[in-house]
């Protein structure tokens, strides 16, 4: 049965409801919403209400509507209040549009009245007497501090391994990255750390930065006035929904061409065709992992045809041959265009062969990108890329090859241009220097698998659902953490000192002590010995910036569940307990390093961190800037407004690499086939390419959506899109439970017949709680420890007939059909 809400009437927000600015805390686009809250015993009327319209009339298309998912009853200052979170028509990001993620923000709030999100953690828990027991913050933090302090003083800070988010939105943001960053990079110098979505502490886009080009350099409005949009390994209608619907769409309606580089046909391509007409959309369905060759051929053709922007190249890019040599931290040389061309030169015929697309299409793409218009004017082109290449083959050189084309055509720093990451979460990174981590950084998953680390702090990451080589990672971490659980159980009834002794003995014998900070009891949290409950955006004030660097304050409108706290205040609590415990241990000098955490609120953490580097910015000023905020970097404050920067590099000076000459560098992106270890062999020995994809309906690893009936009803198992002929060959029906297996492990999902899927290629949704795609991804990474999740091959077998749940769902095409 399709999920029915059985709601036929909703409370009406009264005219005097409290109004809060909200930036959606899910994807990088950061749509603006307004949250209305009002007392439980009050309501508006059809004529007199917070929306100021006659709700007795049927609203037309695009009219104001409070959908059931936008409503809840939550706690605010200890009282139950009505909550409505509705899209803001005055926010320039989304102009009132709503995605299937953001539209459910209210519904995905914890409510003890409506029963939503009862999976949220409310109190600290410690492993005690054979299970997790709720306890006080002081008790839990004392144990964390005692074990951590003992281990790092007996050994070194290298025995402490940390997984921590680096993003904005959700539970990230400038407040929380600063809290964790100050603890691990200032009070300590932890080098064995990794980020939520990759097994090391590194940039996803090292090459773009090394070339001088910060990866978020445009304004979303650039899509509206460009001549061509090039999307590489991206699927924006699903993953940056309102960027596509509110900005790219306007560009297409204004006559822009659309090029998608993706082995898979996506709903984005379908929608682009609907908007712009098939003649204006070019899908380059390249062979997996060959993006670099394509862009090298585009660059070569553009150079050979004389379509480069020579004035820009002369003024803004390096002219003297090699600037940076290839080296251990530098998987390609960098320098002038001529220098790069020595490695990049690829004919369109060669590329057609390697990429498996018609040569004529490659030439057409080059023309759409750079062939001057009939009046001689240069074409404007926005290039955007995301996980298809970031988590793809030879990350460094591939992204370098993409940025090369934008630089050569003068399309960075200009209206209608840009060469940008599309992004996943919002951004919100403000931390002390991470230089001590080194480049290349430690491959943390392998460190843990090989027995390294004794204490493991995990902040809002669930690698069990999302990491690569996940099957092995889980096996080892389960075993090592169980050793410590056994030791704790054996020490039951003893003193705190005896407990710490038992834990330290276990970690010295190969075990690992796990502290998990999260909003829910996650899969990796099953290994934890201490669990600390965190707050999310709007349960705290939180600042982040979106994919065009638009900084907003998303305001607190409700209490966190139970005694949950913002991550920054949890980090401060750990620091204060570390200071106390270290002083008790006689480690006064070390204890002093943990001073400076006397924050009462998240705003204190913001002022201690972000505002130190950006003194113009305060909560009060951001609040006044509302849902349109200000685009970073903030350069001033005048007439009551923060002054921002719509577009980076408008002056033609590139500085992301830190070079004094402020000249952009080209990347010598020489093709070398499959770069990460094991990929070529895996491809040769398995039948199916297992593409790792996203879906608009799920936010990341479904941490909230796993408890949302509307979502789980649609896909009770992770979908695996598959060509119907491949299914027939394996005797599969729609919805059958299938297993993907290879030498790395196995995972499961349900077969979703997809007529546009190529034979031998399946597309599995990433990060599912009921089937981790990462189980079958091999451990191969690039030189800078960037994972290649996208390239996995396996065989497929049937596990079971479709379950009743699976049989009830629709297996029709996801593509719009008029």
């Amino acid at each position, binding site marked *: 049965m399709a999920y029915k809400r*059985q709601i036929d009437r909703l409370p009406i927000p009264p005219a005097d409801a409290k109004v809060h600015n909200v930036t959606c805390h899910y994807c990088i686009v950061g749509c603006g919403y307004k949250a209305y809250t009002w007392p439980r015993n009050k309501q508006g009327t059809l004529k007199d209400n917070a929306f100021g319209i006659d709700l007795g009339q*049927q609203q037309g*298309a695009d009219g104001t509507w409070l959908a*059931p998912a936008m409503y809840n009853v939550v706690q605010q200052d200890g009282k139950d209040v009505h909550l409505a979170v509705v899209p803001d028509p005055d926010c320039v990001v989304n102009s009132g549009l709503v995605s299937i993620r953001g539209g459910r923000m209210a519904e995905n709030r914890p409510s003890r009245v409506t029963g939503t999100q009862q999976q949220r953690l409310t109190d600290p828990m410690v492993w005690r007497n054979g299970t997790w027991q709720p306890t006080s913050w002081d008790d839990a933090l004392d144990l964390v501090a005692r074990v951590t302090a003992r281990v790092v003083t007996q050994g070194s800070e290298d025995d402490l391994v940390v997984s921590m988010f680096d993003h904005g939105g959700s539970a990230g943001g400038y407040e929380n990255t600063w809290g964790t960053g100050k603890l691990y990079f200032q009070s300590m110098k932890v080098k064995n750390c990794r980020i939520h979505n990759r097994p090391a502490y590194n940039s996803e886009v090292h090459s773009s930065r090394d070339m001088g080009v910060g990866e978020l350099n445009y304004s979303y409005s650039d899509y509206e006035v460009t001549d061509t949009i090039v999307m590489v390994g991206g699927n924006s209608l699903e993953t940056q*929904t309102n960027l596509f*619907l509110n900005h790219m769409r306007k560009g297409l309606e204004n006559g822009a061409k659309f090029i998608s580089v993706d082995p898979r046909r996506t*709903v984005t391509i379908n929608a682009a065709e609907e908007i712009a007409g098939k003649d204006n959309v070019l899908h380059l369905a390249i062979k997996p992992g060959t993006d670099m060759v394509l862009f090298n051929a585009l660059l070569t053709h553009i150079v050979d045809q004389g379509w480069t922007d020579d004035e820009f190249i002369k003024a803004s890019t390096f002219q003297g041959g090699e600037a940076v040599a290839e080296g251990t931290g530098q998987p390609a040389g960098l320098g002038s265009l001529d220098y790069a061309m020595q490695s990049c030169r690829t004919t369109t015929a060669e590329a057609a062969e390697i990429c498996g697309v018609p040569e004529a299409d490659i030439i057409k793409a080059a023309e759409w990108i750079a062939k001057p218009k009939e009046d001689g004017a240069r074409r404007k082109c926005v290039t955007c890329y995301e996980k298809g290449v970031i988590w793809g083959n030879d990350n460094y050189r591939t992204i370098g090859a993409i940025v090369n084309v934008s630089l050569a055509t003068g399309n960075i720093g200009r209206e209608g241009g840009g060469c940008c990451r599309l992004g996943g979460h919002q951004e919100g990174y403000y931390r002390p220097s991470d230089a001590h981590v080194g480049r290349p950084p430690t491959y943390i998953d392998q460190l843990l698998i090989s027995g390294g680390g004794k204490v493991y702090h995990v902040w809002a990451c669930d690698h069990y659902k999302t990491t690569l080589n996940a099957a092995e990672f889980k096996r080892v971490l389960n075993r090592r953490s169980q050793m410590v659980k056994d030791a704790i159980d054996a020490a039951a009834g003893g003193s705190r000192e005896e407990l710490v002794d038992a834990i330290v003995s276990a970690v010295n014998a190969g075990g690992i002590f796990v502290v998990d900070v999260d909003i829910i009891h996650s899969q990796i949290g099953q290994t934890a010995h201490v669990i600390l409950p965190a707050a999310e955006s709007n349960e705290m004030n939180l600042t982040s910036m979106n994919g065009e660097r638009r900084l907003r304050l998303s305001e607190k409108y409700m209490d966190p569940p139970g005694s949950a706290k913002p991550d920054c205040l949890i980090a401060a609590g750990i620091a204060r307990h570390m200071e106390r415990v270290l002083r008790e241990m006689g480690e006064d000098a070390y204890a002093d390093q943990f001073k400076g955490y006397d924050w009462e609120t998240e705003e204190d953490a913001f002022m201690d961190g972000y505002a130190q580097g950006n003194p113009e910015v305060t909560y009060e000023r951001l609040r006044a800037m509302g849902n349109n905020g200000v685009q970073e970097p903030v350069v001033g404050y005048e007439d009551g407004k923060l002054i921002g920067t719509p577009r980076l590099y408008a002056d033609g000076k590139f500085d992301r690499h830190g070079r004094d000459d402020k000249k952009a560098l080209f990347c010598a992106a020489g093709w070398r086939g499959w770069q990460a270890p094991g990929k070529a062999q895996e491809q040769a020995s398995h039948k199916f390419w297992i593409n790792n994809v996203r879906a608009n309906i799920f936010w990341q690893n479904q941490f909230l959506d796993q408890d949302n009936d509307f979502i789980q009803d649609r896909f009770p198992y992770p979908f695996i899109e598959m060509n119907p002929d491949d299914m027939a060959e394996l005797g599969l029906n729609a919805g059958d439970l299938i297993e993907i297996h290879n030498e790395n492990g196995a995972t499961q999902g349900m077969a979703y017949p997809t007529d546009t899927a190529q034979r031998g290629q399946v597309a599995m949704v990433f990060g599912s709680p009921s089937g981790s795609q990462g189980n079958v991804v091999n451990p191969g990474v690039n030189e800078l420890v960037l994972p290649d999740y996208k390239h996995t091959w396996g065989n497929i077998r049937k596990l079971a007939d479709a379950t009743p749940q699976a049989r009830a*769902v*629709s297996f029709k095409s996801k593509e719009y059909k008029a």
Partner: protein
Amino acid sequence: MRCKKMVDVGRRQFLRGGALAAAGAAVTTVAGAPAQATPANAQVDYPSSRLANIADLAVNEPLDIEYPDADSPGVLLKLGTPVEGGVGPDGDIVAYSVLCPHKGYYMGYNAEDRTLNCPGHFSRFDVEAGGQQVWGHATQNLPQFTLRVDDKGDIYAEGASDLIFGRPSNVL
């Protein structure tokens, strides 16, 4: 997709339902007397509206309807095979709102794969699977109308599974 064939929308029943809802929302105060609320039913009272007779329906040919009132367009379909929520002797008659529960655009019916498709932002819903959103931006499945067929084969709509776009109450 709008079929030109107009059907009886049960205007009289609709008006009665609307009046009840309005009374339920009102709070009256008499001067000098204690405030007294008019008791309201906990659930919306839906009109019972005759949509068509089974004899009017042909397999996979959509019939335009309006329910619970003239401002709420919908579609009545006979699918030819029994489906979730289907009524009639063949268990194959269903009815849905055709305002997309994302942003309220008027959706079109694709008879080939039996989906309702939104030209606004490309969402689509499966009429053979209880109005489940196949792909799209709406935060709910399509409002499906509760149907009853009487002895004469007249089909009545008497309720809805979800809130209809653009209104705070299905019955205004």
